[in-house]
């Protein structure tokens, strides 16, 4: 009887120990992947904040420069620069705050006070208009207060909001635009990148647009003209050459 009991208990113990060890493994992997996910979100939020800070505080972007003191003020933007940006960069990110890993669109909204409540006044939008589909991207929305300077004596409060997207189209276009910029500066002629695509990527040479998706396409205007062979879903290794102001992607 004793021996039979031991014969039953031992395998059960073994199975349960294995089950517990599996649970331990799964738990550790889950924690690691959660940490990774939090890290990615944090990365996106930090990038969104940084882009807004650069836009609002850089002399090359929107920062207002005092006419007499020539000094800059924190988060104080120039209405003339806003008008320029909304015309010049209506479908792509301005170079002064370009992030080659992500795509973004920024809206600056003026706030006004009426007798009864606060309403939105003028608004200015610039940056990318189309982004990778939701399935192949993650995004974050963030905003910060700004002051909009019309003149030294007329400064309105406002909000600067960003929609930041981390997607396949933004990453691939970012690499190609980066290579284009480096090529123009004479610092790089050749590079390569490995991509794992969930949506096909195509190139419209007439419009110089790189597009993601099959039926419904999202497109971005590229900085350099390209010779680009359309890519299906799956893994690819791209070799990029900068030749006479043009990118050749194979």
């Amino acid at each position, binding site marked *: 009887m*004793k021996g039979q*009991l*031991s014969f039953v*208990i*031992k395998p059960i*113990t073994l199975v*349960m*120990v294995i089950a*517990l*060890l599996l*649970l*331990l493994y799964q*738990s*550790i992997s889950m*924690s*690691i992947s*959660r*940490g990774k996910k*939090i*890290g990615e979100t*944090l990365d996106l*939020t*930090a990038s969104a*904040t940084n882009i807004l*800070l650069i836009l*609002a505080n850089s002399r090359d972007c929107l920062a207002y420069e005092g006419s007499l003191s020539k000094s800059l*003020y*924190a*988060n*104080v933007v120039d209405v003339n620069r806003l008008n320029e940006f909304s015309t010049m960069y209506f479908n792509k990110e301005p170079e002064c705050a370009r992030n080659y890993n992500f795509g973004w669109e920024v809206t600056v909204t003026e*706030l006004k*006070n009426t007798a009864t409540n*606060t309403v939105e006044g003028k608004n200015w939008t610039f940056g990318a208009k189309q982004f990778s589909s939701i399935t192949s991207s993650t995004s974050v929305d963030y905003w*910060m*207060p*700004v*002051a909009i300077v019309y003149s*030294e*004596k*007329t*400064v*309105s*409060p406002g*909000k600067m909001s960003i929609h930041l997207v981390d997607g396949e189209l933004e990453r691939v276009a970012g690499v190609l635009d980066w290579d284009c910029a480096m090529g123009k500066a004479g610092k790089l002629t050749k590079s390569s990148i490995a991509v794992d695509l969930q949506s096909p990527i195509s190139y419209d040479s007439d419009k110089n647009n790189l597009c993601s998706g099959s039926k419904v396409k999202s497109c971005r205007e590229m900085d350099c003209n390209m010779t680009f062979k359309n890519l299906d879903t799956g893994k690819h290794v791209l070799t990029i050459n900068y030749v006479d102001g043009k990118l050749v992607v194979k």
Partner: protein
Amino acid sequence: MKGQVFEIMGFLVLAIAILAVIVLVRVNLAGSIGKTFLSIAERQESEGVRAGVNALLYSTEEKTGKSLLELIGVATYVGQTKIDFGKKVGDIDVEKEVQWRFDAIYGKGHWLLDVPYPNVSKDIQIVFVIDTSASLCDDIKSLALNLPDMIEKLRKSGRRVSATIYLLPGGAPCCDYTISCDKFPEKSYLHCTTMSRLECKSAINRVGQYETEEDWGHGMACAAESGPKEGWEKFSVRVGIPISDEITEGSECGSLSSFHCCSSNEATEQHKSLEAGITGAISYGVKVFPIKANPCGTICSYQGEPPRQQTDFTQLQCDCSSLVSDFMNEIATKTGGKMYELSSASDMPRALREIMVSNQETAGKTFTVGSDKPALKNIRAVTFLVPLPLPGIYTKAYFYEWS
């Protein structure tokens, strides 16, 4: 049997140990990632709050073109949330300006701005409008004896006080002196002038028809308009002090044979003079602190033809005492001041001291806008410097924000 029990117990110990490892790993890993995430996110948020506050404080108010930071500086300096920017611009409610901007950005009930009033002495400019009738002989004497010393002492202690005395037309011969500016020797901070006639943009006393020597209503309007000798300083504390024992244009109405106390009716010329004084004072941001001299008892003056010594007030003046209080209280209340009543001329120094002190006390007060800080909430705090309308002087402001 014993062996099997040990075997089961061994398994239980092993199971507990593995579960403990799982819990430890999860708590440690998730905890450290969570902490890192939180601290970075908090830093991002507090930097965002600081940048946001900077931007909002840089925005300007439409009518004045002044930034919110400047307006807060002025409000805390003058100790009032409403600032008078003169006739053209009018009053600016700094509290309201701060409120709508911060509400729009941070949301109602999610922020608090605290700016302690700075402990700096403001310019106090006083204009006196003094009844020059004989019944004021002892009060003017007391004023002349005490005012220069009082101002000098205050100035030595760092308070910037100045006074301009406007004597109403007239100037009774008192027993030992005649009411005139001779009683108030000119100093850099003390000036005296006699109003030859009560005529200015906002007030006209029809000379000849009504008593001018007691018309402190029109007198106040003209004194506010003319300002002190050096002119009204920007953001100074402006104080008007009429001194009289009668209502504006005199308490006695009727003909010589049937004198009676004037009516308090708003249609009377006396009340119109009071209204002119109120309007004039309000237009120039002057707070009026009337000093009511005692209209009963004895006086010493030379009057009549030939001049002879008088020793009594008229009984009627004494009877009209409450009407004087009503008039003086009205102008004080409507301009933000306070009436002081003297039982005798010796009360004059106390009244003057109280008026000056009441216009300097700002310590301990704060300019506060927003909602009270909630308990058990994660509150982000930002401090920043607010420039005052004095060169190189700042006060500290505290901003709190919570979600």
